C-alpha cells in the first residue's frame, strides 16, 4: 500500500492468524455415550479391543512418506460431558485410560465435548483462550451450498437451526381452496448422482440465547478443531493443556477442554483425521460431512496447512471434508 522506503502499519487494520503445530494424522480411538461407561470396565475393554486392529490399519494406511520422515500420529478420545454427566472425571477417566492401556493403546489427548460448545456461562475459563465459543463461530461460518437457481436475490432458503444437502420439499399450502393441485414435490440432493439422498440436519434447538447444540454439530466442530482450522480473532482455540499425574477433579468444568496426557505425543492438530467409531454413529457422521462441506474456513488457516503439508511432501486434499476419514469396524 505504501511506496518503497516508508511503511505505515496499523495492527488493528491488519490482524494476524496464529499458526498451530501439525501431526500427519489425528486418530480418534472411538466414542461412547455416558451410558456405555456406566456398563463398567468390561464394556470399555471390549471397546478398545475392537478398536486396536484398526489403529494398526490406520497407521499403515497413512501411505509412504518422503524418505527420512517418520509418521506423526496422535491419538485422541472425546468424552461426551455435554449431553449427560453420569459420572465425575475422577470416576470416569482412570478406568478409561486403564482399559485403553490394556489393549496396548495410548490416549494422547483427551477432550471434552462441551469444550467444542464453549465455556459454561458464569465463572471459570480464566484463560482467555478458553473463552472462545467454537460452536457459535462455526455456525457463523456456514455458507449454504446453493441449489441451482440461487442468484443472490433468492439465497438458499435457510430454516433456522437446520442445514440440508439440497432443496427441501416446498411447503404445502394449508388452505383447502388453494390446495387443489396438491401435488407433492420431492426434496432433492444438490450433488446427487442420479438419485438423491436428502439429509436435513438439526444444528441446535432451544432458545437462541441458551441453545443446545446437536451431537452432529459438535462433532463437526471437533473435526475442525483436530484439523487445526479454527481460530478466534486470529488465536488458536482449544489448544491442549498438559496434564500429568495429577488427580482428576470431581467437576467436568474444572478440566481444560483438551488435555495432553502423553507428554511424548506428537501434536494434537493434524493434516488429516481418522475416527474409529461404532456403526451407530454413521448417521451422525453423515451429518458431519454435510456440515463440514458447508463451513467456510478462514483462508489464512487453510493457507498455513497447505503450505506446511506441501512443504513436507504430504499434500492435503483442498476440500476440508476430504481430510476426514472413518472406520466403522464390526462388533464395536
Amino acid at each position, binding site marked *: 500500500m505504501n511506496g518503497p522506503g516508508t511503511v505505515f502499519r496499523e495492527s488493528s487494520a*491488519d490482524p494476524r492468524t496464529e499458526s498451530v503445530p501439525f501431526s500427519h494424522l489425528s486418530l480418534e480411538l472411538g466414542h461412547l455415550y455416558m451410558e456405555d461407561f456406566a456398563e463398567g470396565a468390561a464394556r470399555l475393554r471390549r471397546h478398545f479391543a475392537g478398536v486396536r486392529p484398526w489403529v494398526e490399519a490406520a497407521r499403515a494406511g497413512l501411505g509412504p512418506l518422503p524418505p527420512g520422515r517418520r509418521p506423526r500420529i496422535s491419538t485422541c478420545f472425546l468424552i461426551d460431558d455435554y449431553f449427560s454427566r453420569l459420572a465425575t472425571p475422577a470416576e470416569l477417566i482412570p478406568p478409561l485410560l486403564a482399559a485403553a492401556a490394556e489393549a496396548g493403546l495410548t490416549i494422547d489427548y483427551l477432550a471434552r465435548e462441551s469444550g467444542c460448545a464453549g465455556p459454561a456461562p458464569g465463572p471459570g475459563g480464566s484463560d482467555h483462550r478458553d473463552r472462545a465459543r467454537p460452536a457459535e463461530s462455526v455456525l*457463523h461460518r456456514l455458507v449454504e451450498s446453493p441449489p*441451482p437457481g440461487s442468484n443472490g*436475490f433468492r439465497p438458499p432458503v435457510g430454516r433456522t437451526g437446520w442445514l440440508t444437502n439440497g432443496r427441501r420439499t416446498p411447503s404445502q399450502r394449508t388452505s383447502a381452496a388453494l390446495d387443489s393441485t396438491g401435488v407433492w414435490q420431492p426434496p432433492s440432493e444438490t450433488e446427487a448422482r442420479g438419485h438423491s439422498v436428502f439429509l436435513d440436519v438439526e444444528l441446535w434447538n432451544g432458545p437462541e440465547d441458551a441453545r443446545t447444540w446437536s451431537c452432529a454439530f459438535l462433532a463437526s466442530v471437533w473435526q475442525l478443531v483436530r484439523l487445526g482450522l479454527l481460530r478466534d480473532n486470529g488465536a488458536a482455540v482449544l489448544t491442549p493443556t498438559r496434564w500429568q499425574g495429577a488427580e482428576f477433579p470431581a467437576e467436568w468444568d474444572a478440566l481444560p477442554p483438551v488435555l495432553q496426557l502423553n507428554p511424548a505425543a506428537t501434536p494434537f492438530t493434524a493434516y488429516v483425521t481418522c475416527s474409529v467409531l461404532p456403526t451407530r454413529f454413521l448417521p451422525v457422521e453423515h451429518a458431519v460431512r454435510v456440515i463440514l462441506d458447508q463451513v467456510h474456513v478462514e483462508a489464512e488457516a487453510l493457507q498455513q496447512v497447505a503450505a506446511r503439508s506441501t512443504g513436507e511432501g504430504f499434500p492435503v486434499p483442498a476440500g476440508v471434508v*476430504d481430510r476426514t476419514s472413518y472406520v466403522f469396524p464390526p462388533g464395536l
Partner: protein
Amino acid sequence: MSGLGTTDGPALICGEVRTCLLPTRRAVDERTAVLLLRLRADEPVRTSRRPNRHALSPDVLTGVDCRLPTATGAKVRAVGTVAAHAGLVEGRVLQSTAYFSAPATGPDRRRPWGYYLVRPGSLVPVGRLPEKSVTEGFLTGHQQDLLDVGSIAESLLARISRRHDLLDHDAPLTTTDTSLRWTASPADDGEPASALFTELGSGRRIVELRLPRGTTPVAAATLCEDLALHDWLLTTVGDKLDGLPPGSENQAAAMKVLRPLVDHLLHLWMPQARLDRALSPPWEELERHPGFSRQWNTMAQRIRDQLALQNLVRGEVPALS
C-alpha cells in the same frame, strides 16, 4: 488470493457498492462501529485511524449457482460464492460491497461445494467465461433470475441498519443512497490503470476499470468504495446546494440546509485514503476530468462563504436598527 490476470488468478472482478448515511443522529464512535460491523464472533473488525477513521467488517459469503448476465444473451452458468463486507467512514457513512472474481475457465460441471468454499469470493464458470460479454452484461443492468449482487450488498446494509439497539434511525439530513456497479479487467502490460465512470442518474453509477495485472479483488473493491464514497459526498452536498435560496434572502432556510453539511459531511473528503498506489491513476484522471476535488472544494468554499456572510449580516443588523 491470486491477482487479476495472473496465470492462476481471475480474468474478471465485478462488484457493487452501496453507500448511505448511517441512520443515526450522531456519527458513532469506534466502539459502536466495531459492534455494528461485527458480522462474525471469531473474526475481528478491522479498524484504522490514519488518515481517517475507518472500520471494515470481515467478509461474509453467499453461495450462488445461477446464470451470469451477458451482453449477447449467451447462457453462462457460474457456481461459487459472492463475498460481501461493510465499511464505516468516520462513523458516519456506511458502505457495503458485494463482489466476486471469476477465472477464465472452470470445470464443465458443478463440483462438490467444498471446491468452491476454498475459493471464497470466486464465481467459477461452468465451462468458459466470455469476459467481454459478461463485463458488458453485468454493467448494463439486472435481469430477473440472473446473478444479483446488488441484493447481496443491500441485504448486508439492511442487516446492519436493523441494529436498533445501536442506531436511532433519526438521521440529521435526508440523503439519497447510491449504488456503484463495477467491473475490473486486466490492463495490458505498460497500460496504466484506467476507469470509465458513468453516472446513470437516480443514484446509479457504473465504473468499468482496467487495472494492473496482479491487482487483488480486495484492492479493486477498495478503489471502488473510495470512488463511491466521494461520488456520494459530491451528490449529496450538490443536491443540498441545488436551488438553495441565498442566505441574504432567507437566512433561516439557508442555515437549516448548511449546518448539517458542516456538522456531518464536510470533513469526510479524503480521496485515496487507503488506496494501493498502483491504483491511483484512475483517481488522478477523475481529478483532472471532471475534477472531483475541484468541485468539492468549490462547494465547501461556497458553504463557508455563505456562513461567513451570515455572520457578517447578523453583526450588521443590530448596528442598523
